Structures are given as C-alpha cells and as structure tokens.
C-alpha cells in the first residue's frame, strides 16, 4: 500500500513538473515585434510603367506612355525621372469644328498642337502613409505623395496642317511640373500608382483658320496616370527599434 502511494505521488510529480516546463519555454522577448513598422520605400529603387491621358484639352488629348525611375533616399523623400511618348487623340469638339468648317472641295484640318516626347526630372515627398483594410479581407499599405520638378515636352502641330502653319511645326518646351498621387503596395515588391501631374508649359495650342499662330501662352497640361511599380531590393527594411 505504501509503495502504491509512493508510485502515485511520483506520477503526479512528473505530470506537475512537465506542464510548467513547457509554458516557461515560451520566451515572449523572442516574439516578433507586431508594432514594428515596415520601411516600404527607404533606400529602395522604384521602376515604374505609367499610362494615362491629359485632361481638359480642347482639341487633342495626349495619351502618355511613360517609363520612370525613382530612388527613395528615405521613407519620405525620393528623386527620379520619367521619359515617354504620347499619342494624340482628337476630341469631339475638334471633329465638330472640322466638320463645320469643311465645305465641298475644301476640307479643313484643325490647326492645333499635341505632344511627342515627354519627360521630367522630379522630387517626390511622401507626407502621408499608412495601411488600410480592404473589403474586410486584407491589409494594404499605401502612401500619398507630392511631386515637384521640371518637364520637357516636344510640341508638334497637327500632321494635316504642318505644311501650312506659319511657324516651325516642331517645338520644345521646358515646363515646371507639379502634382501628387497615391501608391498602393500589393506586396513588398509591387505597387500600383495613380498620379496627377500638371506640366505648365509656354507653348502654342492652336492657330486660326488662316493658319496664323497667336503668341505662345502658359498652358496647364494635366495628365492622370495609372502605373505599376517594381521595388528593388525586393525586401523592405524595418523601423529602427
């Protein structure tokens, strides 16, 4: 009887000692820091492809195709460049003017300009960033950024009037550029962007029915661009402890 009690006591002791030993092995100081922020942009290169139209153009919209490179010095400041080409799209208003001015035996092509090569050097500041819950399903990091720089634009006259227009049918403009946008991170390597840029250029926009050309004017050329970005290196750093 005494031996039986001793054996039972030993079994209880083994059970009692084994369970706390497991719990004590969970060292919470080794747990990953949940609140530690990810440096989504700092010291990373961003290669982007952007596409989008200019808006508010009376005669030709310009469809931008642009490649870009940004180097993010830290999480809120970057420098970069964009270069691309635009395709002209004639507006409904321009088509109506051409139809109204065309008479039998005398076709009328609208004397107006559009862009060819475009590019810019810019600085990007990221004042607002964070994360959001999307459709109660997943968390997505994002930022709002501001752009400031200088643009370069090739200004071309409508192909159908370039032999009749009374100025050089090709011109170049240096344009101050400013804008802003939003960047949504799909993961640590890829992001989607929507940017709105205003290139303020001293340029011709149109001529008269006699193909005379008024003086150059400062014009706002607002483009809305959607893009896809790749960040390198593919892994982002973390906030310092």
């Amino acid at each position, binding site marked *: 009887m005494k031996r039986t009690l001793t054996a039972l006591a030993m079994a209880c002791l083994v059970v009692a000692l084994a369970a706390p030993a497991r719990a004590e092995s969970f060292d919470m100081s080794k747990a990953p820091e949940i609140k530690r922020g990810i440096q989504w942009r700092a010291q990373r290169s961003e290669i982007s492809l952007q596409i989008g139209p200019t808006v*508010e153009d009376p005669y030709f919209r310009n469809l931008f195709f642009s490649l870009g490179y940004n180097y993010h010095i830290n999480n*809120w400041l970057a420098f970069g460049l964009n270069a691309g080409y635009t395709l002209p799209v004639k507006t409904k208003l321009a088509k109506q003017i051409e139809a109204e001015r065309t008479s039998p035996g005398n076709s009328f092509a609208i004397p107006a300009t559009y862009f060819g090569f475009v590019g810019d050097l810019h600085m990007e500041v990221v004042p607002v960033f964070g994360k959001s819950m999307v459709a109660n399903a997943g968390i997505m990091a*994002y930022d709002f950024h501001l752009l400031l720089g200088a643009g370069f634009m090739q200004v071309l006259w409508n192909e159908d009037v370039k032999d009749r227009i009374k100025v050089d049918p090709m011109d170049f403009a240096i344009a101050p550029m400013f804008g802003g946008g939003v960047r949504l991170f799909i993961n640590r390597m890829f992001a989607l962007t929507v940017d709105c840029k205003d290139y303020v250029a001293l340029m011709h926009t149109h001529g008269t029915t006699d193909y005379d050309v008024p003086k150059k004017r400062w014009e706002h050329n607002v483009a809305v661009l959607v893009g896809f970005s790749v960040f390198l290196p593919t892994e982002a750093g973390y906030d310092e402890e």
Partner: protein
Amino acid sequence: MLSRLFGFCCVLVGVVVPSLAAAQVLSEEEYHRNITIHQPRPFLEAARVELSAGGVWAASSGIYGHAGVRGQVDYHINEDFYVGAGYTHLFAYDTGLRDEIEGEFNLVSDRSEMWYQALVRFGWVPIVGKASVFGTGIGYFDTHIFIGGGVTGTRLSVAAPTGTIGLGTRWFFTKGLAVSLELADSPYWETFLKTEGLVHNVTVMLGISVFLPYNVDDRFVK
C-alpha cells in the same frame, strides 16, 4: 508484486501523458506566429446619418466652367453600405474657349450652362485605414465608391436624365466630424441646337461631414 506493477504503470502514465500533451502544445515559433491582435474600429458609421456640405468644381466643363455648392444626406445601413441623396447648385463662367471658337474659327458654340444636379446614390465603403503624417500623428479615413442617378438642369433642358459614378474619401477628426473629398462623373443626355449627345460632368467636391448621432461607443467590428 502487484503493487510494484501498479506503481510502474503509474510512473509510465506520468511520463507518457505529459509527452502527449506537449505534442499537442504549439511550438514556440508557432505560438508567436499565431498571436493575433484585434483593434476596435475607431470610427463607426453603421446606423448613422451623414450630413455633408461643400464646394464643387466641375473639372471637365470645357466651354463653360462651373463651380457650385452641394448638400448631401447619406444613411449608413451598416459599416459597408449606404444610401443617399444630394443637390448641387452650379454657377457657370466662361473659360475663354468659347471666345476662341467664335473668334478664331468663326463658329457659334451651342453648349449650354448647367445650373443644378439632383442625384440619389448607393455606396460601398471597401477601404478603412489609418495614416501617419511624416511618421507622427495618426489619422483615420475611409474610401468609398458610389453609383446612382437623377436629373440635371441646363439652359436647354429642365431635367436631363443623369447617371453618376464616383469615389470619395472621408478623413475623421472626431467620431462625428470628417472632411470629405469626392470625385464623380455625372453624365447627362443633352439636346443641343443642332445635335444631341452625352455630356460628361466630372466634379470634385470638398466638404465637411457630420455624423448623427454624433458620438457612438467603441465596439469591436469584425
């Protein structure tokens, strides 16, 4: 002998049972990985009425520019969906393009000025989030999209049929007060002097929203 055998069995049970139990316990890495934190949604919209007022600018008016004021009432059915109605009163101004067309192309513009839009809408709030400004203060916001319809009044049409689609964001200052920014396209069918067609009316609105009841208790919303 029997006692010894029983004692041995007890010791064996004492060793095996904790081992089996330990096998069911998560490893430390798994334990850390499975830690989840639930944060309460700081700004709740369900079963609240949102009253908004703000200034409107029509970004795509072309020959005429338009600016105006809008009043909007939305009822948030739950945290995800809302229904609402709004009225926008618009004021037109010349952009210079009409003078350009009439002066340099010797044509008369037949576009007309808008003076109001009345629209109802159904909205979805798919994104809620928080933002840090230069890594300092935290702000809370949502992003919503909406679709609807109504009528537009112009110089040529008293009530032209109109659709609307857009997106917006609200940035909360308190539990009942937010700044609201919306971008919408509300195209309407217009009969001009010579032709007829769809006119896109892209508007940007910046306003203030007040949620009623003004204060609501925190609660966990999944």
